[in-house]
């Protein structure tokens, strides 16, 4: 709900950040988040919003440089969506 709400209130894009699957503190959580993001992407498509405006980054546990690169990439995808 929070993801859709951000778009409804005018966000250009949303980036969901997770650790890589298997490395998450709660087993299965990353996979669940990934699926939830897909669900919301489908919902955005239904209302005519480019689903690329919702980005998913799986690099939270891979160090600062990797994280920065992933975020820059996600932002550029949102900008070109």
């Amino acid at each position, binding site marked *: *709900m929070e993801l*859709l*709400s951000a*778009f*409804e209130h005018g966000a250009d894009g949303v980036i969901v950040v997770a650790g890589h699957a298997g490395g998450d503190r709660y087993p299965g959580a990353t996979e669940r988040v990934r699926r939830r993001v897909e669900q919301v992407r489908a*919902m955005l498509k*239904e*209302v*005519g*919003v480019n689903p690329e405006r919702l980005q998913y980054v799986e690099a939270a546990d891979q160090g600062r440089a990797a994280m920065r690169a992933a975020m820059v990439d996600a932002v550029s995808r949102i900008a070109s969506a």
Partner: protein
Amino acid sequence: LMWEWASMIVGERKPFDEIMEMIASFERVLVLGCGGCVTVCLTGGEKLADLLASQLRMATKAKGLERTVDVDCMTRQCDREFISNLKVDLKQYDAVLSMACGAGVQFMSDLFPEVIWLPGLNTTFLGYNRSPGVWEENCRGCGDCVLAWTGGLCPIARCSKSLINGTCGGTNKGKCEGSNDMDCVWYLIYERLKTRGKLNELRKMRAPRDWRKDRGAGVRRLTHQEMVEQEGKA
């Protein structure tokens, strides 16, 4: 892990475009979730009502239209007892998009006939949650239950032909000829009865089924006479 199975009326949300078309001529719309069965099957509860309302607001805005879309949720939309759950005044809305099953929509429509009620869901079947995210039909509400001699497996709902003398010639290594994803319930029945040593159940002659109990005589009704009298006195 043991998955907790739950049975219920199952529905699926109508296609978004169909919903948009239904509310096209209304400027004040309420999306009303139902906290009963459709919450459990993740289609019509408070959370899904919230999501749909948000989608409708976004789509409305994208089309440059003027429309307010609010949300509310009742414990159940099929029981007078829960009307007091309503936090909004229905008269404020041009239409209410109910996220309940067909019974709930009609119940609310009967109680508030001055309000325009629209179905947000397609009510699909009686069934249960087989595994996370998967619901499957297992009861047709046929009015003449045979589970006692079919090993607790319903051939009316779970056989493509609703046969009561299966298997048919289309059974295929335990699957139905209609789809490889679908078990042949008569195969399952046979195996279960064999395990129980009750295959003789299938050799018994049974009277022809009375299909009139399955909608053959029109709208079905359950009456508890003792309750009817009680209500009359009150």
